[in-house]
């Protein structure tokens, strides 16, 4: 079963100072290695926090493009992992091991499969 781990971190645009204790690159590399060695990683990337662009197509078909993430939030998605594990408990274990869970939050989402509905 595929789960998406959305790694939420503090948005640099939020106006508040990013708290200390941000995980190091080495910590993320160690997690990357663990998730790869366990054979559960399907995909995973860190995202650029600076240059988000938001697209919104209005009812009249008009395309609205704006700079920045969609909402004025203190948190934004800083990276993701798509993992394939047997059940939610296994996904939650990986999410808890992710360095991002100690700094921001890691949201665990199931991949919607039309057949399951």
């Amino acid at each position: 079963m595929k789960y998406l781990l959305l790694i939420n971190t503090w948005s640099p645009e939020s106006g508040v100072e990013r708290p200390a204790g941000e995980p190091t690159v080495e910590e993320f590399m160690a997690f990357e290695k663990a998730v790869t060695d366990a054979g559960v990683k399907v995909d995973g990337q860190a995202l650029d926090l600076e240059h988000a662009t938001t697209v919104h197509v209005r009812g009249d078909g008009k395309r609205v493009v704006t700079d920045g993430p969609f909402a004025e939030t203190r948190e934004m998605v800083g990276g993701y992992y798509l993992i394939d594990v047997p059940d939610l408990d296994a996904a939650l274990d990986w999410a808890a091991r992710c360095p991002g869970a100690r700094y921001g939050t890691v949201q665990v989402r199931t991949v919607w499969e039309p057949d399951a509905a």
Partner: protein
Amino acid sequence: MSGEGAAGSVEAVFREDRGRLLALLAARFGDLDLAEEVVSDAMETALERWPVDGVPDRPPAWLLTVARRKALDRIRRDRVQAARLAALRVEADRAAEPGFDDIPDERLRLFFTCCHPALPVEARTALMLRFLAGLTTPEVARAFLVPTATMAQRIVRAKRKIRDARIPFRVPGPEELPGRLPGVLRAVYLVFTEGYAASSGDGLMRPGLADEAVRLARILDGLLPGEREVKGLLALLVLTDARRAARVDAAGNQVLLEDQDRTLWDAGLIAEGRRLVVAALTGPGAGPYAVQAAIAALHDEAVSFDDTDWPQIVALYDVLLRIEPSPLVALNRAVAVAMRDGPKAGLVLLDDLSGAAELRRYHLFHAARADLLSRLGRRAEAADAYRAALALTGNEPERATFQRKLTALTGGSREPGRGL
């Protein structure tokens, strides 16, 4: 046997063993909906067959066999589920179908699934009552005083999450258990407290829920006999429940602990609770339920309110405050200190706690302050505190109690009162 008698046996078996049947089928097929449907189907079949064929020797085993066949039929028919059939084939082709008594009890898995931290708290208690206590959705809805449609929606949503997010039917391993068991115990405790002091509505107690909580705690204790906190929880529930008959008078009015007729307390439950407390406290590092049970035992053992061993109760609250600090525990400790050292000492502690927003919103915090103020003769302040308590409770008998006390303070009539 008459048709009516057979129908009665179906219901008796059903109520008693529904949880076990559901747990077995959910564990085997990994699908709570499917388990629920086939258990209902099997019961319908029983209602048709038993009046004609007679009640089988081992009714639960009969129901299980029928339910399993129906589950396999459904999976075969269901194209979406077909892929899972291969994995289940070995299981299905096993020639011997063991009787119910030979099958392991899988209800512990169901407890952990129903109380999974990924589910909202109000869904956990509802799922437990629905699947482990065997209540129907309308019964669960009535117990929590919400419309049936609301409760049905809550349960359906939770079941969908269990299925779609694939919350597993498994007992956490030894390293995870200490993190997960408190959530299960908390859900059982919440069922009890909801039944014991209903947060809204006319009845002070909804005994149905308290009974179900005790039943769930007993099942859990049977499944995890080595877990002392399960014994602690069961002890706390039976020692509290033992006072049920004395908590309400003939007119339906609430009777406070200090005014209760202690001869009405259930000696059998108290004896059972005391045995359990000893087991729960024996060994290093007693848990919070064991300590609370020990406090309840001290109340139950006292021949009168004034004879209560308050120094020991304060000492136990000190322990509780250390292992599970919370404003609520601090409140209870302050009340015990007031009993040990007098209302003034208790009031100092309560006033120190008034910074906690959680307590300022809690009617019993204001009621406790009101009681101490009134014992100190500070009637105007006591009346204000009762008004604050009144504004915060939705429970009718409690409102009546506060109103009575308030009238006594403001109406000029002499409150029998303590202390002064």
